[in-house]
């Protein structure tokens, strides 16, 4: 296959990938979009086989590795519970990063295969692109591994900070640039290995200081990095499909990071520099413990809801942890039978990744036109009878609107307190991830339901 023809086909796959993302503008077109993505991938892989044109023994091994990876991927895709999506995505990002590193290494060892020159005499531009691809890939890999460990709970979600952290990071960044410079001038392979090693370290160092509540930003950011890594390799291989995809994924992740940061009213750098909520937690806990709290049981909650005419449900990460989405849907079904209007309010940073809550509700067969974003539904709280907060906390905290001293001041929150009554399902009075006490707990019209979210929801359903 001629180089021009294959380049045209790569362009076609690039366009199909754009259409795949375009499809996600609405749930109706999204499935078709995903098909476009798959076709794009098939074309890209097929064209690569034809353009290499080497159907020897090696080709069989390629198919074996492809099939092995494919079966592992398919197995994971079908078995993974929807609550574990953040971990899965973090894990997948790490694989893209590592694959980028491997391709870069391979191109470095055997540049002839990619028409980049000979070992020890690689074209300057290619070498720079390769180094960028490898470095960003390595950062994505180790960063995603840490994110994965934190999300899985293998590693503590608490931010890990130490003295001189920022200084060390700055030093490493400078050394990466210096190394790339010397690598390009000397073509010394040792420098290339050191560069990759240091980049692994960077990924590790930039993710450990970031706390659990900031995971939505971290995942989006790593998503973006994986795109830039792919684009870097795309430049090296002079492949337009990779360049287009890399740019798409890179900007997609960047936009998601931006949306997540905005949802928390924090600047991107503030998140990256980390250590959020680790400082003020202790003092705040001590001062507020004495306030009276009204707590109730499933019976009280059922009574309140039965007499309501409209209920707004506010799900959060706690619902995912308790796997309460199905029980919740059953409760809502019962409410609807009693002619009670029910809608769902989703905060942009509810859960551990963008759109996390929406997927869980969709899994529980909640129709997506009953689920609303913050701006769409925030005015409705004033007219609703009951707000049912299940596993959310900081995103409902009115302190974000009233107290300029609060670390979450200015963060957009759901106006839950405007409801006639608020039901708060929570295991204890502990503060949320931001480490701030929620004033809502002590309000006159709030009823705390101390229990596991799933069990409480089931009990309420029984009492309805």
């Amino acid at each position: 296959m001629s180089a021009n023809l294959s380049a045209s086909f790569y362009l076609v796959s690039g366009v199909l990938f754009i259409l795949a993302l375009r499809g996600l503008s609405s749930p109706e077109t999204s499935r078709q979009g995903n098909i476009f993505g798959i076709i794009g991938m098939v074309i890209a892989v097929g064209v690569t086989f034809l353009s290499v044109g080497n159907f020897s023994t090696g080709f069989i091994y390629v198919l074996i590795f492809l099939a092995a990876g494919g079966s592992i991927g398919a197995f994971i895709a079908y078995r993974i519970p929807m609550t574990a999506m953040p971990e899965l995505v973090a894990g997948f990002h790490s694989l893209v990063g590592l694959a980028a590193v491997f391709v870069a290494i391979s191109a470095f060892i055997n540049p002839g295969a990619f028409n980049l020159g000979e070992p020890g005499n690689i074209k300057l531009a290619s070498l720079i692109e390769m180094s960028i691809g490898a470095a960003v890939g390595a950062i994505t890999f180790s960063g995603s591994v840490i994110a994965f460990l934190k999300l899985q709970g293998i590693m503590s979600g608490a931010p890990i900070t130490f003295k001189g952290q920022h200084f060390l990071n700055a030093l490493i960044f400078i050394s990466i640039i210096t190394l790339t410079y010397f690598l390009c001038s000397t073509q010394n392979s040792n420098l290339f290995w050191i560069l990759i090693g240091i980049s692994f370290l960077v990924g590790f160092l930039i993710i450990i200081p970031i706390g659990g509540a900031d995971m939505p930003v971290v995942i989006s950011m790593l998503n973006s990095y994986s795109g830039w890594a792919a684009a870097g390799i795309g430049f090296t291989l002079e492949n337009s499909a990779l360049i287009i995809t890399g740019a798409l994924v890179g900007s997609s992740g960047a936009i998601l990071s931006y949306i997540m940061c905005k949802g928390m009213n924090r600047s991107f750098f503030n998140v990256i520099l980390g250590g959020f909520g680790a400082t003020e937690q202790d003092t705040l806990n001590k001062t507020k413990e004495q306030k009276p709290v009204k707590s109730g049981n499933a019976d009280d909650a059922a009574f309140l809801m039965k007499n309501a005419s409209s209920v707004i449900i506010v799900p959060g990460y706690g619902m995912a942890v308790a796997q309460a989405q199905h029980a919740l849907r059953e409760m809502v079904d019962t409410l609807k039978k009693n002619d009670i209007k029910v809608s769902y309010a989703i905060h942009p940073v509810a859960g551990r990744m963008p759109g996390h809550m929406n997927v869980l509700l969709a899994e529980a067969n909640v129709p997506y036109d009953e689920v609303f974003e913050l701006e769409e539904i925030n005015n409705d709280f004033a007219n609703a009878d009951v707000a049912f907060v299940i596993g959310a906390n900081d995103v409902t905290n009115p302190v974000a609107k009233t107290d300029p001293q609060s670390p979450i001041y200015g963060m957009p929150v759901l106006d839950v307190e405007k409801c006639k009554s608020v039901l708060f399902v929570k295991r204890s009075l502990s503060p949320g991830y931001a480490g701030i006490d929620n004033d809502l707990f002590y309000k006159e019209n709030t009823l705390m339901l101390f229990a596991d979210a799933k069990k409480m929801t089931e009990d309420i359903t029984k009492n309805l």
Partner: protein
Amino acid sequence: MEIDPFIFRLSIFILSIFVGYYVVWSVTPSLHTPLMSVTNAISSVIIVGAIIAALANNDTDIFNSSSLYGYFAILLAAINIFGGFLVTQRMLAMYKKKKRKDK
């Protein structure tokens, strides 16, 4: 003077960033999780580089070090491609509209 092909690739890159910017802003927030999984799947198109690397050698020397990295990259990228697209498909299949006769 002839224009360096690098400039053309750079143009593709920059324009794609803009395309990505506008396309992603039009993605509905409720589909942000599928967006992440599908972007993850498509970024594994890096497999094309892995295949080239793996097949760069002739029959006598299938597993030399450079092609070995290629094979591993194929494995990783294949996990991502299949896993990413299938899990996206699985998620998207769950997004349903309200059934009018829901009793």
